């Protein structure tokens, strides 16, 4: 249990929680406001990450522009989802989004000439021997670290600066989206959960607004994707499998899907449960070795999902009356 106190580990956990916060925020917007069952959200994260990485490595695009291209790619993915949402809702939309997500992953695995295939970003064609994209970020981090040290005498390592960066962006986005969810635009989307008839009859272009929500949500996923890529310095297709989307769903449900403030709460709870189980030395956890503990963790995730559905659909922070998980 002494390992529990190593700060580096918890910083790592918090960084992940921050990335998931941004990712899940996109989902909260899509589901909590517009009622869209997007189960393929991780693909937008991956689309953004891969676009940024490939732009930088293969086409030698400026790093910041590459990040922007990543976000644009995610946005385009959102437009595509918007087209699908015009025709489909409910189960069918959910299934198509999963198909979309898995298609992305398969393309990433098979188009090795572009994406490096199963070997991931290291195998992306470039001028150098191994492909890497983090140099600009690392330089940025290093220069910030030096500045902070000279100003305050405190030494911050790469992870600490990443922590500050991720959570600064996360908090900014949380505030902005919270405001957005108070506008009439958001109210129309909430009304559209019960059907398009009423909002359309009142002059609202619901199809367009749904697309807007999907694009915004996807771009948020794109932001998360870029942080993910920077944090791990390496991406591969299996980083973007449906399980990540399911985690994000669990996060928004834990926190109460209708409220933005539930997202960071859910992400932190999820992050700590997930990471914390590594350290539990007491039964029943002590009966399992670490490989098996990985399976156990996912069993717990599944159990929590079922528990929420059965017993507390409004999540931890939600109010029963506003409950929209039906």
């Amino acid at each position, binding site marked *: 249990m002494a390992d529990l106190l190593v700060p580096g580990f918890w910083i790592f956990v918090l960084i992940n929680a921050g990335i998931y916060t941004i990712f899940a925020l996109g989902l909260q917007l899509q589901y909590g406001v517009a009622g869209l069952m997007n189960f393929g959200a991780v693909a937008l994260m991956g689309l953004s990450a891969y676009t940024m990485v490939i732009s930088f490595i293969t086409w030698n695009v400026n790093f910041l522009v590459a990040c922007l291209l990543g976000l644009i790619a995610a946005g385009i993915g959102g437009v595509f989802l918007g087209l699908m949402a015009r025709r489909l809702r409910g189960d069918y939309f959910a299934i198509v989004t999963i198909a979309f997500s898995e298609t992305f992953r398969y393309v990433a695995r098979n188009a090795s000439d572009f994406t490096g295939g199963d070997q991931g970003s290291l195998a992306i064609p470039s001028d150098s021997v191994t492909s890497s994209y983090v140099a600009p970020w690392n330089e940025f981090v290093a220069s910030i670290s030096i500045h902070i040290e000279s100003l305050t005498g405190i030494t911050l390592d790469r992870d600490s600066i990443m922590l500050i960066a991720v959570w600064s962006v996360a908090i900014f986005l949380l505030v902005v989206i919270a*405001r*957005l969810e108070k*506008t*009439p*635009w958001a*109210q*129309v989307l*909430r*009304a559209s*959960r*019960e*059907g398009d*008839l*009423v*909002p*359309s*009859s*009142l*002059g*609202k*272009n*619901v199809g367009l*607004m749904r697309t*807007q929500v999907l694009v915004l949500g996807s771009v948020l996923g794109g932001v998360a994707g870029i942080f993910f890529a920077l944090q791990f310095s390496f991406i591969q297709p299996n980083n973007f499998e449906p399980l990540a989307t399911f985690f994000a769903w669990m996060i928004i449900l834990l926190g109460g899907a209708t409220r933005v403030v539930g997202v960071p709460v859910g992400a932190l709870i999820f992050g700590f449960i997930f990471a914390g189980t590594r350290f539990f030395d007491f039964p029943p956890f002590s009966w399992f070795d670490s490989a098996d503990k990985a399976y156990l963790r996912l069993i717990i995730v599944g159990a929590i999902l079922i528990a929420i559905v059965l017993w507390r659909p409004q999540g931890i922070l939600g109010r029963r*009356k*506003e409950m*929209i998980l039906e």
Partner: protein
Amino acid sequence: MNNLSTTNPILQAIDIFKSFGGVHAVAGASIDVSQGRITALIGPNGAGKTTLFNVLTGMVVPDTGQVLIEGAQFQGKPPHVIARAGVGRTFQGAHVVTRMSVWDNMMLGAGNNPGDKLRGFFQPRARKLFSQNTKSRATELLDEVGLINLKDEYAGNLSGGQRKLLDFARAMMAHPRILLLDEPFAGVNPTLRLGLTRLIEKLQSEEAVTFLLVEHDLPAVMKMSHHVYVMAEGGVIYSGPPSGVLEDQHVVDAYLGPRSWKAS
């Protein structure tokens, strides 16, 4: 039979044809709705009035024919475009957004709300100004229909009659020039029917709202309408004042069956 009304038509359906899977729901129907008047569209079940109504509101695209709003073509345009052209509507089932309050339902109805658009996010002052105006309109309308005390209640908790009133008030929020009412008196008790009739007449005379009602309930409609269209089997068989409806042979045949069936 003269299909055209005498005063200037603000809403017109011209030669509408629509069939579903080989069945002609509407076959060559034309109606004109005069500005500032109350027009009724009646007919037996299966006459095609619902389909025609859906064509007018943009829910159904006609196979051929035109829909003109103040002379401009709108057939085939989606419902929200028609709504923005000043045509409001109510629903037979009195659809309200059940998980929102009565007040929020009303606010939803406000037309040309800068906050509706995504870019409105960056226009807080415009939103604030608009919202103040909208609030007074909503209060006024809720007062008019007697729902003001329920404004914070979830719309899902309202009774059927109350939902009808909310549907109506909400449709009025955007100052529509034309209001299309889908069986407004269906399943409505006499007190409420009276209230709705008074409301319609008041809005017609005070705010110059043009009304088109699709209805089954003949007596209610006869008393308040200026002009009546009767449909049967996809076409218009009568167009004229309410007083002539029951005397028209085509109408009698349509509702009661051909003359030859009656014992002569």
